[in-house]
């Protein structure tokens, strides 16, 4: 009996110890039991302890639901309700729900391939896991992303991907920013089951910018799609089949796109990496500085990655209105020019013709002395193409205080249309070009002048079959275009309605005319622009709701210079100059400069103009200073210093401020904010950072031009895409590119 009693007691205690747990687990697992009671309304479900709280969308993305509620649908991601617009994929729905789906081949800006299978998720009532990137979300779909089925599917895919992927992460440049590395931490097995030989693939030569290690390739085809869809250069393809499949060009060929560097960013593994950056640094050693690019007038948003005092690389930042997430090769690879040919000490040319390093005090004293010996009207100031608005403001104020009004910015031509902002800006906006259906390019080759603008035009042409007409010298285009003519004669024909292209313009809903800033250099530019305006009026290019009349500027400084009024005639100013102050201006013609003129060169690179300079004042480059730049669409942006400046160089505006004090005409500002206060009285739009100030007055108030139009054909403005300014001319990588990639 005692035995029985003991056994009963034991079982009892076991029972009693188990029962609460069972009850608790019941409460945990099935909350519906509690919800079943009449008091518990709909409010019970969100307070459910099992369900994690809803998450924020991935990357803080905002989803704009269409105004019509019928165009939106509701899906359930891991039990949470998400409202998304129609046409979203399952993967996008998950992103809205805050669930990051692993992926390799999917890229939001490229077409969907669906071949990596990494984004598999479980969908209720679907017999198999679903590739979420290619599956459109359907109303009421119940998507599960963290179930054992989904996890196992991803683990399986990962094992297959790692099967042929070399284990060379320690010597791979992608290490630390590799999608495969990151995702194998989440889904990779701790050991491999693969005992055969790994496959190996011959490396391809894609030119001086992109390094290939094709054995690492996982065949996501992002680069193939990028080359075809964004760069518009169909060089890359997927060759072979099965385990012999590889990315290549078949016939050996360099990648000749001006956007080729972007394949480095989109490659999820280390198959395509940066050749100049190879084995230079690891990404976790680098300090990122979010700044903008100044090598063209687009002002692409970039991140300058630096280690200590050295710029190691440049990568793009996302800005939907300007560069999306691409940058041109010139922007990406010009950085080694920042380390070469730099001016680091003030220097004076001695009687023997050699430069001698001196102190700032001596240099400024010499300049001030010479400045007082010349007549005020013989003083000329020239701002270079990389100048920021602050230094141009200081230069203008200084030269004006010395009694001269001859201040100009290179590239603006003899008589720039500076009176109305709409006459020198891209009024449609870079992103606005996507709405256009007919383009008329006058004297501009956007592919070399502003690669990112060209990428937008290419995107539009590809998406909507927009027509492109081009007037200018024969040029390379990466989209379908009609070459209408080479000179102003064609403009006349279009203005008079005799040209066959007129019918395209006539039927266009949103026509766009883009005139190149190269036309500013022509003597007859007033007549040309009035003819372009005639065309604009005739074909309804400028309407209250659409301004399609654009000017595509060439240089980063140009828009701000025109805003600030640096508009003197270069030929006359140079001819009469006895004291020439070049602020980074290297491309202005000094042929007409009098022999006895005194030239001060203030800049960061020993480039063309240094040969003529008497005094050199070293200044800092765009990566080393804070400056305001206005891009071709009128968007004001700041550069942020990423690295310390070299040697004894100073910011441009500070040098001029110091010189003004030595010369006895002190400028009334001592800080950057004070300079900006001064700018606000001249061009307040330059203070509205990251905003596009639209021109308010239309071009109709312009007086009619009385000039005669010459019949000289338009000229090519940018001969070498890779070398356009002092920084890129000093760059070794850009020199290699010009040698290998430019067509002879």
């Amino acid at each position, binding site marked *: 009996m005692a035995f029985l009693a003991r056994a009963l007691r034991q079982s009892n205690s076991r029972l009693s110890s188990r029962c609460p747990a069972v009850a608790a687990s019941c409460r945990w697992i099935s909350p519906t039991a509690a919800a079943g009671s009449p008091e518990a309304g709909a409010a019970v479900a969100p307070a459910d302890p099992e369900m994690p709280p809803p998450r924020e969308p991935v990357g803080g993305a905002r989803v704009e639901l269409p105004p019509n509620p019928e165009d939106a649908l509701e899906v359930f991601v891991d039990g949470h309700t998400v409202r998304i617009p129609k046409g979203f994929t399952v993967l996008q729905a998950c992103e809205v729900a805050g669930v990051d789906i692993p992926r390799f081949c999917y890229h939001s800006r490229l077409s969907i391939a669906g071949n990596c299978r990494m984004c598999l998720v479980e969908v209720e009532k679907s017999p198999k896991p679903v590739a979420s990137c290619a599956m459109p979300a359907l109303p009421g779909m119940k998507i599960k992303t963290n179930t054992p089925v989904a996890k196992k599917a991803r683990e399986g895919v990962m094992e297959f991907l790692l099967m042929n992927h070399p284990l060379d992460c320690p010597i791979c440049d992608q290490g630390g920013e590799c999608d495969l590395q990151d995702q194998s931490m989440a889904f990779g097995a701790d050991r491999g089951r693969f005992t055969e030989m790994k496959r190996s693939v011959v490396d391809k030569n894609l030119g001086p910018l992109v390094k290939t290690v094709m054995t690492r390739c996982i065949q996501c085809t992002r680069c193939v799609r990028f080359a075809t869809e964004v760069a518009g250069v*169909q*060089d890359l393809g997927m060759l072979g*089949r099965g385990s012999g499949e590889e990315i290549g060009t*078949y016939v050996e060929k360099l990648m000749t796109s001006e956007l080729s560097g972007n394949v480095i960013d989109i490659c999820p593994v280390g198959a395509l990496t940066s050749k100049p950056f190879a084995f230079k640094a690891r990404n976790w050693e680098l300090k990122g500085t979010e700044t903008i690019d100044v090598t063209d007038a687009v002002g692409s948003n970039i991140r300058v990655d630096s280690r200590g005092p050295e710029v190691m690389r440049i990568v793009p930042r996302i800005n939907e209105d300007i560069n999306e997430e691409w940058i041109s090769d010139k922007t990406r690879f010009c950085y080694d020019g920042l380390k070469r040919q730099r001016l680091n000490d003030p220097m004076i040319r001695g009687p023997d013709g050699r430069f001698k390093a001196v102190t700032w005090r001596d240099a400024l004293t010499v300049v001030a002395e010479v400045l007082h010996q010349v007549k005020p009207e013989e003083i000329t100031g020239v701002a270079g193409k990389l100048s920021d608005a602050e230094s141009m403001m200081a230069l203008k104020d200084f030269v004006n205080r010395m009694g001269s009004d001859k201040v100009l910015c290179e590239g603006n031509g003899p008589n720039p249309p500076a009176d109305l902002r709409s006459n020198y800006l891209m009024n449609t906006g870079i992103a606005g070009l996507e709405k256009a259906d007919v383009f008329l390019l006058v004297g501009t080759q956007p592919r070399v002048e502003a690669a990112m603008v060209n990428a937008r035009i290419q995107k539009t042409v590809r998406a909507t079959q927009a027509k492109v007409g081009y007037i200018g010298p024969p040029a390379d285009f990466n989209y379908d275009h009609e070459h209408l003519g080479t000179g102003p004669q064609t403009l006349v024909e279009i203005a008079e309605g005799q040209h066959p292209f007129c019918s395209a313009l006539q039927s266009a809903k949103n026509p766009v005319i883009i005139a190149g800033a190269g036309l500013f250099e022509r003597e007859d530019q007033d007549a040309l622009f009035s003819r372009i305006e005639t065309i604009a009026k005739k074909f309804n290019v400028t309407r209250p709701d659409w301004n399609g009349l654009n000017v595509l500027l060439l240089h980063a400084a140009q828009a701000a210079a025109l805003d600030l009024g640096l508009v003197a005639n270069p030929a006359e100013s140079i001819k009469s100059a006895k004291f020439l102050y070049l602020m980074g201006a290297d491309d202005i013609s000094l042929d007409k400069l009098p022999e006895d003129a005194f030239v001060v060169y203030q800049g960061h690179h020993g480039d063309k103009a240094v040969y003529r300079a008497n005094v050199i004042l070293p200044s800092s480059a765009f990566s080393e200073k804070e400056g305001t730049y206005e891009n071709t669409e009128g968007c004001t942006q700041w550069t942020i210093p990423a690295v310390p400046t070299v040697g004894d160089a100073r910011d441009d505006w500070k040098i001029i401020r110091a010189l003004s004090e030595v010369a006895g005409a002190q400028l009334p500002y001592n800080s950057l904010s004070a300079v900006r206060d001064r700018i606000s009285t001249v061009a307040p739009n330059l203070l509205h950072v990251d905003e596009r100030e639209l021109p308010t007055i239309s071009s109709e108030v312009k007086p009619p031009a009385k000039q005669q139009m010459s019949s000289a054909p338009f000229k090519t403005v940018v001969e070498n895409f890779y070398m356009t300014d002092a920084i890129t001319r000093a760059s070794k990588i850009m020199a290699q590119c010009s040698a290998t990639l430019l067509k002879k």
Partner: protein
Amino acid sequence: MLPPAARLAARRLLGICSSSASEAAVSRLAPFPIAAASARGPVSSARPFSTALNYHIDSPENKPDMKWEFSEANMKKVKDILSHYPSNYKQSGIIPLLDLAQQQHGGWVPVAAMDAIAKIVEVAPIRVYEVATFYTMFNRTKVGKYHLLVCGTTPCMIRGSREIEDTLLEHLGVKRNEVTSDGLFSVGEMECMGCCVNAPMIAVADYSKGSEGYTYNYYEDLTPKRVIEIVEMLRRGETPPRGTQHPERKNSGPAGGNTTLHGEPKPPPCRDLDAC
């Protein structure tokens, strides 16, 4: 080379045949001597498919800057092929055009031909290269006038296709995918061509008469002896009878005539629906 599992399977099957089945059954199953799969020596390092490499290497007869165009007669065929597709989907014609170009160019497509096709169908050349490298029946390096393709899939392999291939290679004195010095023959491997009932088999692509006289014939039920005879007949310019080479078989029927299905086959029994 084929996966080791297949070879293992072949060996197993052989073992089963020799040990358990009666002599008569074996002789019916295998009328010809079967070479032991394991007897085969190390496989040549050449790629098993007709594709040599997935990239182009310049050679005197294959350069991108050479001129290549369809002949006058074939240009008519090109127009006919393209007429099958909508004018905005000309690229659908890439495969038939590559085939035509291969027939015209003696069994292989040079890069120049692919470029010419790209121009005709208005796509970038790389899109044609992608197709040509994907399909193993497009030869991108030179082949012989008679391109002999040995089936290497499991049924043929079990029935001795390895030996057939070895015999061919030895008789012609070439390696796989290599052309004989007289330019007449080359030997390649193919995957299943659907003749398993008459295994082993080879397919002979005859490019000796251009795209007009182009033939693509199967020679089935081969023995090493017979395959040499076929090669010699081809060398003499004769046309060996295509199909099964077994003296007693007709098409894919059993040796010595039908053993079953002598009369009209009975129709299948049907349920009397009214009775239900």
